[in-house]
């Protein structure tokens, strides 16, 4: 049985389609990742699955319960860590946990025991009586994860769990998430725009772009799909280079991007000399060249023709522009 099923899910804000006909299933005990740039529609999807937002159309169920007709049961089945913080800073960590436990109607004796257990798990037990106000970003995130687990949910939603955290804290959180899944068998659906996070944590990854899932598989398979290794060549004469090397038999795929060309092939080290020779015969200048095993970044590039980082940058530009307009 599936922990989550999603069929043709759509969310429109006015005439803007934020989530566009999404369909996927998540097995029990699976860690599933939605990977995509800012604005791809990840949070909107999570909001619908957690009953916080009504879908425009489509169907979805969580833990076997329909998200439209059985909201209460869905809510009992899930724990969620929202993208933006959702703690009461004027309360202590323990009080935040206690509030949650009471909301989920956990009897007092069990509640107190479980809170201490979870605060230990996320290593906050010695700071449990501090106001959340004075907690660091990483501590808050850990507290939110502990809180999301207090009522023993079947499914845990993590929306950008490590956004804005330093690398050390991120690694730490990843360990928690892995352990949770392994030891308690909780189904986890997480969203991220960090390639490495999706790669490390997720059994399967759905790559989301502009509200659509453009590829979905294990990280391994996704990377294999683009064919062995990747050679990236930065050059101003991309078109010429493209037609020069296109016919080489070893090459599986060639794609032209804004400032570079990416070539997918097996055993790149062996064939790189041939490619460079071909280029110099045609007097094509190569500014730089590098060979690497494919990453999810290459997968995203392969399917969309853009890098996730480009997306991030343009989103930031947009925001900056909006701020400028507002200031005027």
């Amino acid at each position, binding site marked *: 049985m599936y922990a989550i099923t999603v069929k043709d899910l759509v969310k429109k804000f006015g005439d803007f389609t934020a989530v566009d006909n999404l369909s996927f299933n998540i097995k029990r005990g699976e860690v599933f990742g939605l990977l995509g740039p800012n604005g791809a529609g990840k949070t909107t999807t999570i909001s619908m699955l957690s009953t916080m937002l009504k879908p425009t159309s489509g169907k979805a169920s969580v833990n076997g319960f329909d998200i439209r007709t059985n909201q209460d049961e869905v809510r009992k089945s899930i724990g969620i860590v929202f993208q933006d913080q959702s703690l009461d800073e004027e309360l202590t960590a323990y009080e935040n946990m206690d509030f949650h436990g*009471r909301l989920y109607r956990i009897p007092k004796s069990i509640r107190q025991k479980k809170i201490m257990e979870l605060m230990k798990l996320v290593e906050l037990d010695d700071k449990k009586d501090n106001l959340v106000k004075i907690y660091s970003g990483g501590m808050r995130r850990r507290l939110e994860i502990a809180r999301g687990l207090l009522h023993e949910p079947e499914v845990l939603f993590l929306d950008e769990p490590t956004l804005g955290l330093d690398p050390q804290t991120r690694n730490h959180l990843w360990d928690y998430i892995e352990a949770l899944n392994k030891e308690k068998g909780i189904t986890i659906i997480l969203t991220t725009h960090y390639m490495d996070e999706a790669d490390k944590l997720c059994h399967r990854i759905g790559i989301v772009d502009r509200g659509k899932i453009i590829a979905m598989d294990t990280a391994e398979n996704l990377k294999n799909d683009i064919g062995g290794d990747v050679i990236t060549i930065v050059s101003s004469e991309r078109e010429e280079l493209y037609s020069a090397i296109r016919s080489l038999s070893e090459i599986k795929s060639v794609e032209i991007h804004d400032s570079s060309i990416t070539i997918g092939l097996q055993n790149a080290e062996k064939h790189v000399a041939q490619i460079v020779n071909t280029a110099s015969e045609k007097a094509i200048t190569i500014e730089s060249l590098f060979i690497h095993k494919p990453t999810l970044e290459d997968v995203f590039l392969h399917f969309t023709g853009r890098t996730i980082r480009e997306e991030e940058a343009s989103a930031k530009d947009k925001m900056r522009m909006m701020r400028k307009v507002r200031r005027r």
Partner: protein
Amino acid sequence: MDIVYTIWLRNVKRYLRSKSRLVGSLGMPLFLLLVLGFGLNSVVVLPGMDQGYIGFIMPGIISMSVLFTSVFAGIQIIWDKQFGFLKETLVAPVSRLEIMLGQTVGGATTAVIQGLIILVLSLFLGLELSNASGFIIAVLFMLLIGLSFTAFGIAIASRMEDMHGFQLIMNFVIFPIFGLSGALFPIDGLPEWIRSLTLLDPLTYGVEGIRYGLLGSSQIDPSISFMILSGFTMIMVVVGSYLFRNISI
């Protein structure tokens, strides 16, 4: 009930914890009591008021305190929205009615505490309580003001995106409600058109009820005040619940 209690508990904890806010919110009412009370005490002579003008406005200032604290407690929902905490409550398997009622009762509790603090201060300034049942009547009316205006605050907060509209509400709704309520002047001597505005103001009945409890006499029959204010409270709770049910985050 346990959910209502949970939300109530959070509100009361937050209120008791923020000492500076608590003390700060006593400034304005105390200032009015002293300046208006002592300033006008010798000038304004009210027939049948043996406690003078200062005695007359004490119930009014107590009402003001309860009014402001409760509206503020209701509007607090907007902060919860902005700081993200509201999501934590809304995603839990509890009904929005329970959340709304918890918030209302919590806000009313803090408002009554605030009113009681002013009442105690008033005792030092010469207020003499007529009897114990009068005190209970006064607290009951404070509670009704607290409940109705916290619900009113929640209704407004459910419709507001951020705090930008707050000043507007304060200046064009809350201050007029206070100003027209007969907290600072007797209703009987007013020109007819102001008098009818005053009688349309729900707070008037709260002020009059508290006045009856504390001073032993009022211009409006306390049972009428009680019925009208109870009715207003029920309407506000219904409207507040309805709007809160459709709150979007």
